[in-house]
């Protein structure tokens, strides 16, 4: 099955702005978009540049825009994409370093801003684990699985409008710790997300939930954080 890949290209220092380049690829039956990129790089054009690593949707390296949707290249089957022409572009709203590689620096800064680590209640027991009920543990499902790929934040219109917005990935991470029964300082983290560029910039558009390759729902998590802020009169 032949497919045409129309790929965004930008070589810093060599060209002012990006352009598109087309590659004709004879695609194997179970090929992913990442397989096709590997073929293009190996056989057709060694200069094509993209990030990748695990090949199965857990490392979060190969997020990109595929036919207009933010996806992971490694878990998108070519046969599932409609049309002869497949368009590959870098994640939107991040600065392009080269071709499909974007600068994730701002994205990571927001993630770090929410204090993404446990701030525990007292000292843990020395010789065993702290206890946590299965119900309490279940509250972390749908949040701890985030792979930091950036698909959600890049797809968020509120982030496009406000470059200082924490964005869905960072807020989902805040949720993961706020609702961890082992964490003591819900208040401190809620203060951080209750910033003018925090929670309230989310207008429940749900692009993030649609974009998440892991099926997570940051909008719902942000809703829970908003309710908590109101409840506690932060």
């Amino acid at each position, binding site marked *: 099955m032949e497919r045409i890949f129309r790929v965004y290209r930008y070589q810093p220092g060599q060209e002012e702005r990006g352009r598109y380049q087309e590659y004709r690829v004879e695609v194997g039956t*179970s090929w992913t978009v990442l397989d096709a990129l590997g073929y293009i790089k*190996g056989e057709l054009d060694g200069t094509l540049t*993209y990030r990748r690593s695990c090949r199965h949707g857990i*490392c979060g*390296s190969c997020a990109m825009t595929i036919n207009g949707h933010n996806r992971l290249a490694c878990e998108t089957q070519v046969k599932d994409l409609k049309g002869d022409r497949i368009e590959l572009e870098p994640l939107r709203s991040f600065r392009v370093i080269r071709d499909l590689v974007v600068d994730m620096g701002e994205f990571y800064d927001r993630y770090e801003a929410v204090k993404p680590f446990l701030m525990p209640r007292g000292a*843990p027991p020395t010789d065993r684990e702290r206890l946590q009920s299965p119900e309490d*543990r279940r509250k972390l499902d749908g949040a701890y699985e985030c792979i930091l790929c950036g698909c959600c934040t890049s797809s968020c219109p509120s982030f496009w409008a406000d470059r200082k917005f924490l964005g869905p990935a960072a807020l989902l991470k805040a949720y993961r710790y706020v609702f*961890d029964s082992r964490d003591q300082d819900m208040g401190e983290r809620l203060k951080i997300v209750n910033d003018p560029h925090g929670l309230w910039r989310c207008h429940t558009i749900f692009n993030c939930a649609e974009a998440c390759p892991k099926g997570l729902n940051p909008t719902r998590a942000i809703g829970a954080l908003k309710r908590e802020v109101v409840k506690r009169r932060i």
Partner: protein
Amino acid sequence: MEYHRHEVVIVGAGIAGLSAALEVQGSADVAVLSKIFPTRSHSTAAQGGTAAALGNMEEDHWEWHWYDTVKGSDFLGDQDAQEVLCREAPEVIFALEHLGVPWSRTESGRIMQRPFGGHFSQFGKGSPVRRACMVADRNGHAILHCLYEQCLKRGVRFYSEFLVVTLMVREGRCHGVVAWDVARGDLHVFEAKAVMFGTGGYASAWQVNTNCLANTGDGLALVLEVGLPLEDMEFVQFHPTGIYPSGILVTEGARGEGGYLLNDRGERFMERYAPSKMEVAPRDIVSRAEQTEIDEGRGIGGKGYVHLDLRHLGKKLILEKLPQIHEMGVKFAGVDCTEAPLPILPTAHYAMGGIPTNVDGEVLADEKGTVVEGFFAAGECACVSVHGANRLGTNSTLECAVFGRRTGRRIRRYMEAGVEYRGVPEEEPERAQKKVADILEARGPERVSRLRAELKESMTKNMGVFRTGEGMREQVEKLRELRERYGRIGITDHQKVFNTELEEALELGHALAFCDVIVAGGLAREESRGAHARKDFPKRDDAKWLKHTLAWRSEDGSVRLGYKPVAITRFQPEERKY
């Protein structure tokens, strides 16, 4: 070329490297270099669990875990190191919980544990024991993210997307590393009092493998380059359940939870290979069983795969305990494993061999155990040796956590003893510069992708689940040919910023180097032990081969072999049956 000075430089941001960084931070200036962003390290792909005899589900003892690890290693592991691994496992798991790892929980709120291959009660005589501490089937991901976040909390300095191109070791002393900043495209010299490698394994040298694309064994090649040996490199684990055809991993937890392996006739063929332990026998045994079924024409439809059937476990259990496997089946095999069996095949997975170290992560230079001053290693790139000839499932993330931590503590003591910087040897920056420039300017006719494909195909054919002297001799020749052609490669990308073609060419050069020692060690070892299964020498031979291989490589590709004894402290070698 930019110069940096950090007291401690850790290369690799997986579970081993970050565990060490957390121990050192606060008492010394530490920097972590990683060729990819830390949370993208391959530790994140570990799925099923981390072993520790917590006894949260039923009676368990760390000595039972020790015995299973010794037997699993086909008695090639060093029992003193294996003792450390199993004895310290519970406290390491508790420490990870205290840091915030979201372990799955039992009804009483304890860490949940599941059964895994090769883990039994009563010194191997009892039934399977639930010893694998689990975060559903996203264990590595949960641990890695937690450790990275703790590093952020404590202000560890990271250099992300820095590819180390040379290690500076001279006359038994380490001076630092030189790294290529991928995003900017320039070289950086890192002078350090202590360097630790946590650079991962090398199974990506095989065509069908579970490894991430970044896992290219660079650290091992850098060690060979400076004239240090590698240990037991011929031992490479084939995992029994890779998704057909790409080989990406389906956790052994799927069999631990009760999954069946079926051939084309619908038989649970493990009955013929491990009648008592069946599907939860250790990986080397199950992989050989599958390969035999496939080779004898009993693969599904006569093809190169068998079935992993989970349907009888029920949808509820699958979605709760194996959610990632369910998702991967749908995305990569087009199979909903609650409704149909998954097509699977043996896939190169894990490197038992690596950089020889002692139990404190100090790198060893020879058979006598001479320590390389200021150089440390832990995790899959290291060989302590806790896995010997075959690793048990759930012992790899454990190894990273236990020996990463121990290595960090050793480095901390080393710093406290008042060690000085040793300077940067004059020729070293130039050596790194030449290594990069040679490729950046390479305009020969040979293509990296072609050579890499031929390397992987030939390693699969000649160094696969089953090996023969003839095949390995053929591989020696093939490697010679590839090395010669590598001298004539050309790349088309001559830019500096984010040049991944340069990176891939460097990685291929590294793979060609460490493959030489894999094959040399395998060819010399005339026996079958653990993952090294020779059709021409089908029996284990303790009289001749109960010893570790050490291999040194010269620039021309020639390999010198040496050997050192196995530490046997408690369990005498016995026939390995399951």
